[in-house]
């Protein structure tokens, strides 16, 4: 690790587990949950957020000494909005069907609290390289949770992964379905995502009791 000092490595690794933006910091839940019914949409969302966060943190970190603190929120919003427009146009050009599925949720990356939260908490007070790593780390932590949720919801809800049937054919009754297995339609509806996140938090905090909240 010649490129990354130990401190820098922690910037990337911490948000993946013990300081995860979704399960610990409670940021960025807004635009995430509704699109996790399919693994593919989750992955695209994760990649988009990694792109926006990495570049956004760089830009904000570069401008941190020239933004007057009174209007910094508007300045930050404009930077994010510009990056999100890029993502949106790329998606519309190269993955039109997918951009229809994600609909307004691409736009809602703008108000994703992770992005504003990391701008405020980190990029406004740190150098460019460290801000970039922090952005990538947090976006990865967000992406990991998104992909885990997407994995379970698509597997249990539709019996597919990335749209490919992995548990057999539910109509022809092959694979698992031959033994009377049924898809759990409950996993497809939006509220299931919340329950999956709740269970994830439960598992994580059981494994690491230091994270348990005082009631």
């Amino acid at each position, binding site marked *: 690790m010649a490129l990354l000092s130990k401190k820098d490595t922690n910037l990337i690794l911490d948000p993946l587990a013990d300081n995860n933006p979704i*399960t610990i910091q*409670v*940021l*960025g*839940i*807004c*635009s*995430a*949950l*509704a699109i996790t019914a399919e693994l593919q949409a989750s992955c695209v969302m994760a990649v988009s957020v990694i792109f926006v966060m990495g570049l956004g943190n760089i830009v904000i970190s570069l401008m941190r000494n020239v933004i007057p603190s009174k209007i910094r*929120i*508007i300045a930050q*919003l*404009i930077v994010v*909005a*510009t990056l*999100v*427009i890029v993502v*949106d*146009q790329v998606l519309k050009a190269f993955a039109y069907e997918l951009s229809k599925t994600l*609909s*307004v949720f691409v*736009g*809602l990356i*703008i*108000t*994703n*609290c992770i992005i*504003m939260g990391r701008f405020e908490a980190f990029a406004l007070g740190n150098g460019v390289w460290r801000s970039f790593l922090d952005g990538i780390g947090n976006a990865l932590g967000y992406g990991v949770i998104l992909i885990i949720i997407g994995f379970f919801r698509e597997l249990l809800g539709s019996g597919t992964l990335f749209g490919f049937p992995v548990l057999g054919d539910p109509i022809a009754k092959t694979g698992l379905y031959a033994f009377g297995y049924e898809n759990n339609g409950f996993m497809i*509806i*939006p*509220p*299931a*995502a*919340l*329950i999956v*996140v*709740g*269970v994830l*938090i*439960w*598992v*994580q*905090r*059981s494994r690491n*009791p230091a994270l*348990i*909240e*005082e*009631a």
Partner: protein
Amino acid sequence: MLEHLELFFKSIFIDNMVFAVFLGMCSYLAVSKKVATAVGLGAAVIFVLAVTVPLNWLLDQYLLRDGALAWLGPEYADYNLGFLSFILFIATIATMVQLVEIVVEKFSPSLYNSLGIFLPLIAVNCAILGGSLFMQARDIPTLGLALNYGISSGIGWFLAILAIAAIREKIRYSNVPAPLRGLGITFIITGLMGIGFQSFGGMLTGDNEPPEDGTPATTADKTEEKLLIKEEIEEDEKVVSYNEVIHK
């Protein structure tokens, strides 16, 4: 009139900001520990949505959508500035929030003291931007309906945060498994409430069609629906007042 009523109930119950599309979850989770603060934030959200959605509707109608610039003259008729909508919407919202903050501070210090601390938070509340983006995505046809949509989705958000705050105040006395305490159980409760709200789904369409492309029903159906709506609301009001009683 009927379409106003339909949109009103649809945005409160069926397409509820929190339970159906997960908007504004961050502040929903962060500010729902006490009923009093939840009410303050909820009121501020209704207010800001009621201002920004109609404003962004005007922007969308006369500036952004395909051919919207035709009023400038025929040579502008084939411009489509749709790609700019994110940046314009968010700029409108941030400016309006700042403006509202200044005006409220000037003219009603007491309201400012109760709403004031929440107003800056609201600029980055996804429910606000979400309101404008859904307004655009669903092609709300008139300014009146846009205003209606802003207010009613605000009320939906308000109801959601009021309910969860009341539950969280009570749940402190329950013996929740330690790792689930705080955040975990809040997620699961919200999920369960969401499932409850899903049952409003068939309310306006009268069948299992997804609410977005609900076809206009016949008049006979509509009277039935109205009765249904009435019943549902009465029930919901009971739940809310029940929560308030518990709170007291």
